[in-house]
């Protein structure tokens, strides 16, 4: 983060322009860049989505397999969200273990899905305590130009809504066979994350890379289709007043409906 340099001139310009209620690329403060989502474009994964949010480009793949359940939930399936910062996506990203921000990205997207209880995990058990279905959601960043959380959250939702889950049969001997039949994954909720950034005294949505570098802090709020909140995450070395937090929640509720319409278009 700190070794990514945005020049002081540009920094000042961004702050000044935002203070007048405009953005460097001509957008309004609360306007998203063009969002394009293509679903089911990969044959080998059960669900997939390609998200283009301005120049930010993310591919989300959903794979379903068989694995061991956790000790405390022998009959519940397992969902895992992982984020990959690929070195092709940005000059400062390197191959190697995931950086802290990638861990946070995966955990924030995961928290939104999990808290909304998007999938009924109790229906994914196969053999109690031995085998359950595993759902892997992999967030693959191919080009980074800011606002990864929102892009990945929309991508994960779009990919999960179009996932064709294979049907498994358990024989009396305890053998698990994958049948040719598939069934659409049943989702119980449609949570979507919206990130609101604070630059000076202004609140903006969908920051570009430069705006993210300049921002003071951000709050990510995940909202479901009923307007309930599922997850919040505040970042940045800055405080928010209660009023600002309430404003952020209002913005997120409004924007999530707008983005959700695009994310669910492929359903």
């Amino acid at each position, binding site marked *: 983060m700190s070794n990514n340099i945005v020049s002081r001139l540009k920094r000042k310009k961004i702050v000044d322009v935002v203070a007048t209620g405009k953005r460097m690329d001509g957008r309004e403060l609360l306007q998203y860049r063009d969002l394009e989502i293509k679903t089911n474009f990969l044959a080998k994964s059960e669900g997939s989505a390609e998200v283009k949010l301005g120049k930010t480009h993310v591919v989300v793949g959903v794979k379903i397999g068989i694995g061991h359940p956790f000790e405390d939930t022998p009959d519940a399936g397992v969902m895992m969200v992982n984020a990959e910062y690929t070195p092709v996506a940005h000059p400062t990203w390197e191959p190697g273990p995931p950086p802290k921000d990638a861990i946070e990205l995966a955990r924030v997207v995961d928290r939104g899905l*999990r808290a909304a209880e998007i999938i009924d995990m109790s229906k994914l058990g196969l053999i109690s305590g031995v085998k359950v279905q595993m759902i892997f959601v992999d967030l693959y960043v191919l080009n980074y130009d800011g606002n990864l959380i929102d892009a990945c959250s929309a991508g994960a939702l779009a990919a999960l809504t179009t996932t064709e889950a294979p049907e498994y049969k358990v024989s009396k001997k305890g053998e698990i066979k994958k049948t040719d039949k598939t069934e659409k994954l049943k989702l119980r909720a449609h949570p979507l994350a919206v990130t609101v950034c604070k630059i000076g005294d202004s609140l903006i949505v969908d920051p570009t890379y430069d705006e993210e570098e300049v921002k003071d802090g951000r709050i990510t709020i995940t909202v479901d289709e009923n307007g309930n*909140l*599922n997850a*919040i*995450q505040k970042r940045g070395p800055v405080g*928010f007043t209660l009023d600002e937090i309430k404003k952020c929640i209002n913005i997120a509720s409004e924007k999530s409906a707008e983005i959700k319409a695009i994310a669910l278009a492929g359903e």
Partner: protein
Amino acid sequence: MSKTTKKKTTKRKTSKKKWTRVDGRKPDELRPIHIESGVIPNADGSAYIEMGRNKIIAGVYGPREMHPKRFSKPNMGILRCRYHMAPFSVDPRRSPAPSRRDKEISMVMTDAIEPALFLERYPRSVIDVFVEIIEADGGTRCASINAAAVALADAGIPMKDLVSSCASGKYEGNLILDLGDYEDKNGESDVPVAYLPKNDQVTLLQMEGIMTQDETEKCIELAIEGCKQIYEIQKEALKKKYGMVEATEETEEAPEEEEPVEEAEEE
């Protein structure tokens, strides 16, 4: 997690005369808190906190030279928090290697505490805050922040304010303050908050669960009230140590043998 929630609510509904919390507390009552400062002789500052059955120790080293040097900033210091759970702090035993959760909490803790410091005073330096969870009982990240703030003050590092932290949440339909382990795991939602009382700013805000917008806002307000109570306890803990040094200084003339002890305490 969802499974246990269901089991619990059905069992409890039958005996629903007057709602009480699992441990008999009032909805807006904190668990007993005990904070002691200056508990690690080697550290520049330290604090031990018991918040309910949480047992957490925090130590501060620095400001000191940053290693590796390439991570240092030429214009300001860096705050580096490390949250770590002992393998025996939870059941079942956990691996001592830092988990993804630990890394995320370390990040949000840093963000929560940094607004209280004057990092621009320490170019090329680092302030290390190490937090070890010896026993976990729900709300460890909040208790850690409370201990870390006292430890930083104990280290003599100038601060704009202490950082106080406390969670609120929803359990069986009621909004409650300072969730215990059981309420945390089986409740509907959890909202950890950190707060700078003098600036009236929220520096840590997370949320997980399902709540309406109104409930979430009420929860944040409830947590802020809790933080204000904790703030007083933190101040007491510091006064207990440094108030004592002052008192002995006044009676300095009387017993001469005690002098070396006093000097040690003063440091």
